[in-house]
């Protein structure tokens, strides 16, 4: 029997891995910088929480609805945002986080600063799910998403994304509809973030606007960057390392955020490809072992 503490950490890490994975679709696959990912995470969580507490929908119905709502909001916000050039995009997505957080915080319908409580773990077979079972459920959904991603990467959609990422003008000249594919990436990434939000709300049973602020966006971005932008396993590894780091670094609690900022800085300055990128130390060591 695994302890409840460990299960909690595992679930948190998998939800982060799902978020990092979904941001990687936008930033890694399609090459669009987004600093607003936590907003869609929040939209998913709030949709799920409101449907459960106010309308009495069960988790199994609200889960897909959260993903769809986050996806639709992502598409609606993505259309104007993706018309502007990449630096504007970074700032407009950042603006989205502030506005969405303000909406959650100031409109009484969303519970204000107190957030929304009283969300329960999902029911199945007439009883409440155990945390271990919930963990397995999230894991299965995540593996399913990873398989989907693998197929998507090799399809024409994946090819169109990589052409936009590498050279937008050339892609346009080859007849790739740039805005359409960017919006598609944005929608898909937001929908998966919404899904993660729904899982998060039912796991935490209590959500607040502060859970979905700008710092959360940065954390997700860090995970992607740390592991390696655009790689398949990098963001997941990043989520595991940065998700567990706060737990094992309790002794240096006081300096944690400081070290964290420096880590981010040093990572980009000296290992911009991330630890699983094509030019990273880990790969080089691995290659040398193979050659020998």
């Amino acid at each position, binding site marked *: 029997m695994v302890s409840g503490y460990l299960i909690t950490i595992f679930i948190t890490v998998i939800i982060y891995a799902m978020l990092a994975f979904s941001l990687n679709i936008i930033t890694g696959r399609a090459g669009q910088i987004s600093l607003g990912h936590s907003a869609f995470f929040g939209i998913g969580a709030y949709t799920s929480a409101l449907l459960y507490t106010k309308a009495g929908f069960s988790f199994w119905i609200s889960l897909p609805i959260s993903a769809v709502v986050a996806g639709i909001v992502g598409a609606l916000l993505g259309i104007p945002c993706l018309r502007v050039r990449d*630096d504007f995009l970074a700032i407009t997505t950042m603006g989205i986080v502030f*506005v969405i957080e303000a909406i959650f915080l100031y409109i009484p319908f969303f519970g204000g600063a107190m957030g929304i409580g009283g969300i329960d773990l999902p029911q199945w077979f007439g009883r409440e799910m155990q945390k271990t079972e919930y963990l397995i459920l999230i894991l299965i959904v995540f593996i399913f998403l990873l398989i989907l991603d693998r197929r998507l990467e090799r399809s024409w959609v994946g090819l169109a994304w990589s052409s936009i990422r590498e050279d937008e003008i050339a892609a346009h000249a080859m007849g790739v509809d740039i805005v359409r594919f960017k919006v598609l990436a944005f929608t898909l990434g937001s929908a998966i973030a919404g899904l993660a939000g729904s899982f998060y709300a039912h796991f935490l049973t209590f959500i607040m606007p502060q859970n979905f602020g700008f710092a959360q966006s940065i954390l997700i971005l860090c995970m992607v960057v740390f592991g390696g932008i655009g790689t398949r396993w990098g963001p997941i590894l990043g989520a595991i390392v940065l998700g567990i780091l706060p737990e094992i670094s309790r002794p240096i609690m006081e300096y944690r955020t400081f070290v964290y900022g*420096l880590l981010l800085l040093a990572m980009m300055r000296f290992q911009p490809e991330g630890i699983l990128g094509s030019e990273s130390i880990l790969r080089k060591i691995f290659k040398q072992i193979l050659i020998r």
Partner: protein
Amino acid sequence: MLIQQLANGIAIGSVYSLISLGLTMVYGILRILHISHAGIYTLGAYVGWFSFRLVGNFWLSLFIGMIGASFSGYLVERFLYTPILHMPRIAPLIVSIGLFIAMEEAFRIIAGPHTLAYNARIGIGDLSIGSFHLTETQILILIVTFIILIFLWTFLTKTRIGLAMRACAQDAEITSSFGVNVRAIIAFNFLIGSAMAGAAGVLIGVYDNQVWPTMGSIPAYKALAIVVLGGLGNIPGTVLAALIVGLAETFFIGVLAIPFPRDAVAFIAMIIVLMFKPYGLLGKA
């Protein structure tokens, strides 16, 4: 009442313009979103506070704060940005975010998490004409901003270095082919921009009568919104946008009393403007 709010809005807008100008100058020349600029702003406030404690003269502490900020801006450019300029655009952005987080934490660890009072008095007193009232710090902000903006404008339009800086912002490669030392110009850009951020930090420290570790968090993002609103890299546009945001904030919150977070106003203005003018108020495609 209306004139009063107008004056308050302009005072706040002036400080915003001081913070945003450095950002827009850095963007104009290096195409980097310099988020840690707000860290330098906070540093300026702390250096100013510390030197005010030592010497007790406001003007001197303002000057020392500006010098401190200026120098740290130069170090950031020299050791963090220049080596990674050839990398994809996301690299400097993330370095900047990392540095900003680390700087905020460093301030908290070194100077403590509490606020420090910065009650500098310059002895000009408040100004009251009927119901119209300007506090001493507001007058101070208006004077200092005015002097700095005049200085910047003269510098950029009348001197050879200013000319080179404007040329670099348009096309650094061609400017370098004319024999201009582009690296020195970039360094100069950071020195001036960071000095302005430092001045803004000191002014806000005096205006709110406090200096605290996370005082840069909101300006970090708000200044970016202002810079985008004005058209990234566009100096007159930035000043205009800063004043508009300052006025919009005072009017929406102060006059209409809408229960809305003051700090989201800049972003809403930005998103609305970008829908109609994707390159900002005065930006060119």
